[in-house]
């Protein structure tokens, strides 16, 4: 189909057209700038929309309106928030480490933005097609932990240090299941390049797509990946490091004004980046869910899936209570790590068994039975005694 193809590739075509007007010597630089600028514009815009969606969504879940005064139904709220954070006084504690205090939010935002370089947003629309794309993503993600630690340490405050330690411990613990859950996909597709992974999922048998989520190991991997991604971006129910009601804001307690907004931006950008990677690895990237829907442009599908995942994040935030630190660590090391290792084993079994119903049965039972056994074994059996009161009888 010619016309939808043009619409699908419209950004690629317009970039080539613009590059035609640039002298050859400058073309690499201008090409890089033209590729990077849309990412720098679109994702902060998505961040703004997400903040208002989250506040209104959480409000409706909690039987109240969200913000509804600023624009039509409150959707210009991010503009008001942006003006507020830009004009607030930037207070830096006198005993704080000035240089590190300034660099921490910058490093966080920079690391979060770097991760978008390997996400294929549409057909032929990836910033760089690295051979080791997924590895690059995780490498850049590990810089976020350093930025969190810098923020907590440089504020020289008990709360921020405590929050930073908890945050770094949480992020390191959950990075292991995150990487292991994505290894299944790397095994199945035989390549670390995100473009190759999406291209493998973009084919259809009759109308059904070949997404990895429609396999038992892919589904388990997706669930584990999403849990680990929620923990990596410090979102509820894993937001103990920034527990609002407990240690106020944790590692960014001493930040105000624009730097605070940068932390917020960095956290949400990290959330979008890991959701983007989940979409790329498990949900087929820019591929349409059914073969008769491929006329809708690929970038629309990517953003639709991203919005759906964001809504799931918001939904989970509104539902689950916060996990305690020891419960959090127990979940990572005692439940998710064994499950991811089992998942890798199951993916291997899947690969070597002939396709058919037996394969499904064997792999599904290989995953469900240990899951049930593990969770039963890990349930804390506390004997609750009958309470006796001294004075209130």
């Amino acid at each position, binding site marked *: 189909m010619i016309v939808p193809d043009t619409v699908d590739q419209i950004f690629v075509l317009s970039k080539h057209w613009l590059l035609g007007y640039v002298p050859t010597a400058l073309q690499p630089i201008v090409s890089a700038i033209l590729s990077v600028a849309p990412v720098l514009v679109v994702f902060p815009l998505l961040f703004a929309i997400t903040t208002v969606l989250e506040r209104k*969504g959480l409000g*409706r*879940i*909690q*039987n*109240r*309106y969200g913000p*509804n005064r600023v624009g039509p139904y409150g959707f210009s709220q991010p503009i008001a928030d942006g003006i507020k954070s830009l004009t607030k006084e930037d207070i830096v504690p006198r005993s704080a480490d000035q240089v590190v205090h300034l660099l921490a939010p910058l490093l966080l935002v920079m690391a979060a933005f770097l991760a978008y370089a390997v996400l294929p947003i549409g057909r032929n629309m990836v910033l760089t097609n690295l051979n080791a794309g997924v590895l690059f993503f995780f490498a850049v993600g590990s810089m976020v932990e350093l930025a969190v630690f810098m923020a907590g340490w440089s504020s020289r405050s008990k709360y921020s240090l405590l929050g930073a330690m908890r945050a770094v411990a949480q992020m390191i613990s959950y990075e292991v299941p995150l990487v292991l859950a994505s290894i299944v996909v790397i095994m199945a597709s035989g390549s670390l390049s995100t473009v190759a992974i999406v291209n493998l999922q973009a084919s259809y048998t009759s109308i059904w797509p070949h997404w990895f989520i429609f396999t038992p190991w892919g589904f388990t991997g997706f669930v584990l990946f999403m849990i680990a991604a929620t923990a990596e971006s410090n979102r509820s129910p894993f937001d103990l490091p920034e527990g609002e009601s407990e240690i106020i804001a944790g590692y960014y307690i001493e930040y105000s004004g624009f730097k605070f907004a940068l932390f917020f931006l960095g956290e949400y950008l990290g959330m979008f980046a890991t959701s983007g990677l989940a979409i790329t690895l498990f949900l087929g990237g820019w591929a349409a869910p059914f073969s008769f829907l491929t006329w809708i442009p690929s970038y629309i599908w990517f953003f639709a899936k991203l919005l759906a995942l964001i809504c799931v994040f918001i*939904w*989970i935030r*509104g*539902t*689950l209570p916060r996990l305690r630190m020891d419960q959090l660590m127990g979940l990572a090391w005692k439940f998710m790590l064994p499950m991811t290792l089992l998942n890798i084993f199951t993916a291997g079994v899947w690969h070597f068994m002939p396709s058919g119903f037996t394969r499904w049965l064997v792999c599904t039972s290989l995953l469900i039975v240990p*899951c*049930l056994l593990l*969770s039963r074994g890990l349930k804390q059996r506390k004997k609750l005694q009958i309470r006796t009161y001294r004075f209130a009888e």
Partner: protein
Amino acid sequence: MLGAGILKGLAETARNFLGSYVSKDRLTTVQFPEERPPRIEASRNFPFLVYDGTDPQEGLRCVSCFICEKECPPKCIFIEKSTDKKPDATGKPQFYPARFNIDVSVCMSCQICVEVCPFDAIKMDNAFELSATDRFDALLWNKQQLAKSNNYYHEIHPTEAAAVDAELAAARAKTAAAAAASAAAAAAKKLAAPPIPPTPPTNGDDIL
């Protein structure tokens, strides 16, 4: 089943989210300046003076008896009696307050003035949107600002106002009946009274 609790929780929040667009009891917020929740009848804020009829000067029930001024605990009522009299609801000439000031910044809404008033002239209002830009003069209310009609009283406290009206009507009927009865009795007494007994004849006894 593993994860059943989480799934049930997710279902509940989804039901809340979708239900908040459909039914009012899943979204109980009252958007204040545009919508107001109904106030219960017993709510009260500051006092006001009741007048019957349409003219605040003519129909004012207050006869400046000074009882509320004496009983007010923070002494926020200031009354000045008039020098002339005007007829009240039953036609009897009564004094009226030339000045009736309440300092609302002092009033503590204790309702004692209402309880002691024998004429049902001062009652509690429930208006609360009373912001003023001046702390002193704007919060000292005079007779014109305090006088509100009996119809308004019926609007804000219907059962109370109906009870007060019934009492006043009964009292008026009783006085009218008593007046009529005493008039009739006086007339009857005049008719049935024995003639004035004649003075006994004097014998011409000289008074020594």
